[in-house]
């Protein structure tokens, strides 16, 4: 039997046997061995005692027989009580030696040769102890046992007794003992190997059990996580969550999709393609726009290019009704990171878009309806004011000029409202051209000059001599600059000053401004409008660019306005890729700075 076979056989045994073995081994290994090895001798002594009692064996000397039996009993008692090696000696050797002494006494007491066979028990026990020492002790002991009866009988030692006791006996026992010892050693080795394998197996079993427990836990956690995900997706009833494989075949279809498109999950999953819910015309248009193939490739083209894509698509519901849906498309990967399909998360915008359209129409209607009477007012006023045949008296002219100025103001307001509505609707378009900002700033100063003069506000212009050109919409940039300048004048008390300054600068990636060109900094134009006016409270500065917001200082000082100018200026700035910042201290003044990107030289 090879080691592996032994291992396999051992591993094949039942767990209870292994448990029992381990328990015994743990309790008293040495004592168990000594006691077990003494059992054959004890049994033989018991049989001898019975035979003596039955007179089947002769009794030559009763005292010696009794002493022999007592000694035998003593040996068994020692084996029973003593386990470990003590100061007196090793019980593994001591017990058989005591038993040998008992055999010698019984042999002398009975004078029977048959009793000598009792020597086999202790001899085998000695031979089985680890090492050759036991064999030597057995051989010597056997010789002693053979000599003792003769010595006790005080009769002369015969040569054959000497030969038997000193040569044949020990030699036979020694050689036989060696064979037994070798056998015991091998058995012991095998037993040790079995023990080691048992321990290894127990360890493996524990590891397997631990691993199984871990797997079980992981499986349950995964199941719980999957359940959480499913329940979250199932809880979404107002958004459609649709997952497809790489070919567009639908794999995930949540209640939101059921509600939006009117088809239950079993009728869709693995049965339909996402393309079946799209308008073919839209997909063709998308394909044309992106230059990609038609179908799914067109649908996911932008998401593939940029990682995600959000835009309006028309879904066609089961009842044939088109729905305008804002769809976020993202690619999905499996646990290996391989592209597995696409996710489509959609929000039904049909009503919202219709409302937006209505709002748009409403704003342009209102703006049209307001412009028409203003056209008459301004037109006839012009006729009256410019009539050379019937010149107006100075007073009349002053009154009608006031009417005209206010009609103009009303007209600007209508324009501002329409403009903000266009910004909201995303229909605000720029006419990009090269715009010289020095011209824009000078024009703004010119526009505000009369008003500023009347209000007693000094306007200072600080612009470079050469043109400072940015790409942009001249009309809109003029509007933005006019707004800032007229605001500054409006919010500055008499005797104050408004400074318009324009400079070329460079903006570093962390947002800092330098006046020197640097390779890592982007060239910008900075247009600042500073005043020495009433200022804006710090807490209100964040809301300043919100439509219809008016600072408390503006209201307290009864400065006219509706709160559209800065919102418009901000929108224009943003549309130009620029920023609008302000620094203000209540009572000290305000500086608005418009930063616009300009082309690298």
């Amino acid at each position, binding site marked *: 039997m090879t080691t592996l076979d032994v291992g396999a056989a051992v591993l094949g045994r039942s767990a209870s046997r292994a448990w029992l073995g381990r328990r015994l081994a743990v309790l008293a290994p040495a004592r168990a061995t000594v006691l077990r090895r003494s059992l054959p001798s004890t049994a033989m002594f018991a049989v001898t005692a019975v035979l003596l009692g039955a007179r089947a064996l002769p009794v030559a000397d009763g005292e010696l027989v009794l002493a022999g039996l007592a000694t035998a009993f003593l040996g068994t008692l020692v084996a029973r009580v003593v386990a470990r090696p003590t100061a007196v000696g090793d019980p593994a050797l001591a017990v058989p030696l005591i038993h040998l002494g008992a055999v010698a006494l019984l042999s002398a007491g009975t004078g029977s040769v048959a009793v000598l066979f009792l020597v086999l028990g202790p001899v085998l026990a000695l031979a089985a102890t680890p090492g050759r020492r036991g064999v030597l002790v057995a051989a010597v002991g056997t010789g002693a046992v053979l000599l003792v009866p003769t010595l006790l009988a005080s009769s002369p030692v015969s040569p054959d007794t000497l030969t038997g006791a000193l040569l044949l006996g020990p030699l036979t026992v020694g050689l036989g003992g060696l064979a037994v010892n070798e056998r015991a050693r091998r058995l012991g080795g095998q037993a040790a190997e079995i023990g080691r394998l048992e321990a290894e197996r127990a360890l493996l079993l524990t590891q397997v059990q631990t691993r199984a427990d871990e797997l079980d836990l992981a499986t349950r956690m995964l199941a719980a996580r999957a359940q959480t995900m499913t329940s979250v997706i199932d809880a979404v009833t107002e958004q459609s969550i649709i997952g497809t494989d790489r070919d567009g075949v639908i794999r995930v279809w949540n209640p939101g999709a059921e509600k939006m498109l009117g088809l239950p999950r079993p009728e869709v999953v693995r049965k339909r393609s996402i393309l079946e819910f799209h308008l073919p015309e839209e997909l063709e248009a998308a394909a044309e726009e992106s230059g990609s193939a038609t179908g799914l490739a067109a649908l996911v083209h932008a998401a593939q290019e940029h990682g995600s894509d959000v835009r309006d698509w028309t879904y066609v519901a089961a009842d044939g009704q088109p729905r305008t849906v804002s769809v976020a498309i993202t690619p999905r990967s499996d646990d290996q990171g391989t592209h597995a399909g696409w996710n489509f998360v959609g929000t039904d915008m049909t009503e919202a878009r219709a409302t937006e359209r209505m709002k748009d129409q409403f704003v*342009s209607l209102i703006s049209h309806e307001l412009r*028409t009477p203003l*056209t*008459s007012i*301004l*037109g006839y006023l012009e*006729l009256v004011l410019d009539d*050379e045949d019937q010149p107006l008296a100075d007073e009349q002219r002053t009154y009608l000029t006031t009417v005209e100025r206010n009609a103009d103001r009303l007209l600007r307001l209508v324009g501002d409202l329409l403009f903000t509505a*266009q910004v909201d609707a995303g229909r605000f378009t720029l006419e990009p051209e090269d715009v010289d900002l020095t011209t824009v700033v000078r024009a703004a100063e010119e526009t505000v000059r009369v008003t500023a003069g009347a209000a007693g506000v000094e306007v200072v212009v600080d612009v470079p001599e050469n043109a400072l050109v940015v790409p942009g919409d001249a009309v809109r940039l003029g509007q933005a600059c006019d707004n800032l300048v007229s605001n500054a004048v409006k919010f500055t008390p008499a005797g104050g000053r408004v400074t318009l300054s324009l400079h070329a600068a460079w903006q570093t990636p962390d947002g800092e401004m330098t006046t020197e060109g640097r390779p890592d900094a982007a060239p910008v134009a900075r247009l600042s409008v500073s005043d020495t006016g009433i200022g804006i409270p710090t807490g209100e500065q964040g809301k300043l660019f919100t439509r219809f917001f008016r600072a408390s200082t503006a209201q307290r000082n009864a400065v006219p306005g509706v709160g559209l100018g800065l919102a418009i200026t901000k929108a224009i700035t943003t549309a130009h890729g620029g920023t609008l910042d302000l620094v203000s201290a209540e009572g000290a003044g305000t500086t608005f700075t418009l930063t616009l990107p300009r082309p690298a030289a």
Partner: protein
Amino acid sequence: VDTALPTPADMAAPDTAGIRVLVADDEDDIRNLVSLAVRKAGCHIVGSVADGTAALDLARTELPDLAVLDVSMPGATGLEVCAALRADPATARIGILLLSAGASLEDVAAGLAAGADAYLAKPFQVSGLVHQVRALTARQPA
């Protein structure tokens, strides 16, 4: 309403005497304002109507030199009238000036695409309209 004696401005202006103009706007006040401006430019009004269909009919019968059309009118819009006039060889050479309360670039582009010669946003300056009418009706010297 014109002055009896020609002003220096009138003398410098192109000769517009006998130029026939059609005015169409659904707003009475604005139609009158436009008519005043047209007369100021020295032109003769051959028709003043309040809807697109009437404007088209009148243009076909009167064959004016210039039609000043409001964009938003009942019947047919100014853009539709404009396109119809351009499509018919008999009326294709009529000068067209569009007026609109919509002032966005898209509106201007749509007007010019429909075949208008010029486009003015409402509210317009009367002097600007006068100038525009004169420019569009100036007779090239023979």
